[in-house]
């Protein structure tokens, strides 16, 4: 059977070495930062492409976010994804329940338009907010099975055999499609976009829906402010430069009882 796959991705800042907050303490200061697709979801895009290369079918990428999140949809299309959907919001962050409701509404709209997804891939958790729940909420609303944390995915007929790490080993699940699967980085190594891919993605259409802010007063998780964890107190001890530092380094290893006596 061919597979029609939807991948949900999130636009997040590329944090690099240091996080700085905006003065209102509600956002990461991104004046000097670039943005990227959250890492687990990039692997979701790759997995969708590989599955469709193997089984045939279609790939669609979706994101919920501000207008600039179209960049991440184009990144996915540059990798080879065929269609893109932007659920456009303002600058305020939506909580996982609100995000899942909007995705479900769109999946139902797509189904009515003839795109009935066999598989919805999400990331195990978004790199920034780390809520671990959007995919499961989507699955519940659609009445579909869900497994999170997946690092291996094989599809035979209408069954998905998925594996995830547990206690140093693996847990194996067999679930029927249609399903929602949350993938983890390591399931694959995402490809780089090609130049023709980039050019094609630049001009590709994006289905865009303008969403209005979720109604106030709904039970939600509402961020009030961000703060940085306390910084490490004192600076470390410099053991020296180059090979001359090696005796001091071995001495430290002895002191820490890594090398005995």
């Amino acid at each position, binding site marked *: 059977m061919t597979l029609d796959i939807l991948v949900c991705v999130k636009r997040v800042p590329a944090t690099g070495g240091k996080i700085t907050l905006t003065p209102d303490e509600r956002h990461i200061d991104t004046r000097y930062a670039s943005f990227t697709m959250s890492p687990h979801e990039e692997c979701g895009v790759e997995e969708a492409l590989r599955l469709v290369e193997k089984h045939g079918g279609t790939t669609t990428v979706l994101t919920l976010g501000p207008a600039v999140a179209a960049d991440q949809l184009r990144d996915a299309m540059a990798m080879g994804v065929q269609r893109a959907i932007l659920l456009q919001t303002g600058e305020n962050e939506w909580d996982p329940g609100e995000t899942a409701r909007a995705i479900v509404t769109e999946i139902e709209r797509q189904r009515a338009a003839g795109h009935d997804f066999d598989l919805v891939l999400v990331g195990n958790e978004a790199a920034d907010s780390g809520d671990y729940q959007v995919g*499961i909420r989507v699955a519940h609303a659609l009445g579909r099975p869900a497994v999170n944390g997946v690092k291996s995915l094989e599809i035979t007929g209408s069954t998905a055999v998925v*594996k995830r790490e547990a206690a140093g*080993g693996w847990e194996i699940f067999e679930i029927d499609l249609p399903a929602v699967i949350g993938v983890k980085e390591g399931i694959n*190594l995402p490809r780089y976009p090609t130049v023709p891919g980039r050019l094609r993605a630049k001009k590709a259409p994006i289905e865009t829906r303008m969403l209005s802010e979720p109604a106030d007063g709904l039970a939600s998780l509402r961020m009030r402010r961000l703060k940085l964890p306390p910084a490490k107190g004192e600076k470390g001890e410099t053991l020296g430069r180059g090979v001359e530092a090696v005796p001091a380094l071995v001495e430290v290893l002895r002191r820490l009882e*890594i090398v005995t006596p």
Partner: protein
Amino acid sequence: MILAVIEYDRSPQGAQLNDLSLQMLALGRRLAEQLHGPLHAVVIGAGGRSVAGSLGGHGVAVVHLVEDGSGRLEEYAPQAWARAIVEVTSAVQPAAVLAAGTDRGHELMAHVGAQLDLPVAANCTEVTPGDPWMVTRLRWGGSLLEEAELGGAVKLLTVAPHSFAAEEVDAAAPRIASFSPQLEETDFRVRVAGRVEPDRSKISLADAKVVVGGGRGVGSPEAFALLEEIASLLGGTVGCSRAVTSLGWRPHADQVGQTGTRIAPDLYLACGISGAIQHMVGCRSAKHLIAINKDPDAPIMAQADYTVVGDLQQVLPALRDALREAVGQHRDAAPAVR
């Protein structure tokens, strides 16, 4: 009242309470006291009966032991387990339901939140009941904190690992109440169908006492052989940064970081790793951090306990030789190296 979802691990020696669940109970007990109510726990599967009694020592007054007679609940089935937690919640009406911030805890609470249509706050480090309830939770794997209002008739949350120390209290044995949920066949459509047991002959990255980490600065996949040898001399294992797995130099299983493995060794020796937040989140639980980097201004140098500024191509062979000598001298007087 507070309801705590308990995880236990099965081992050949029998069921064992999960450490992170015990840490979560420390917060549960605190919240129960603040709300002047009892702390209840839910344990799923008859296999948990043997650990239920010991929860009294962590402040639990009543354990709801969930069994349905069919044996189906003995193996992990997220949707069915969550349904059982929802049923216990409806029966005992807690102010909040807590689970540990583990893969399983997050998955179960996400299902509970979906089934009850209530928000879930993941990885909380502080929880303050009130109107509204306020939580502090981890973002970016803990490199950023968020203060948030948590709504909902029942507060649902997971507790970030290592935010609370497990506490033992003098208390009576808990009352064990059997609970039989009404489950449908469809609740079991996701259930563990098989397992691959861990390879116990290898030192796992998550449990290693010494980790030697390599970044892009190592230079090539072949150059990791030197790190392997140093790790072996120190009785540890090799890890790497995300840059290295993205280059295809090492398997993802070796990756230390937010999207890789969280390590907690006695020593993390980071070689040629710049110290991106994504990586530092994964090694924040290391007791000691030594960084070797040619760039004295690399972010990792400000966070390390000891630093060496230098070229890995020169420092590492010299370190290997010194360790060979140090370890070799004592090889007969085992154990020379932990």
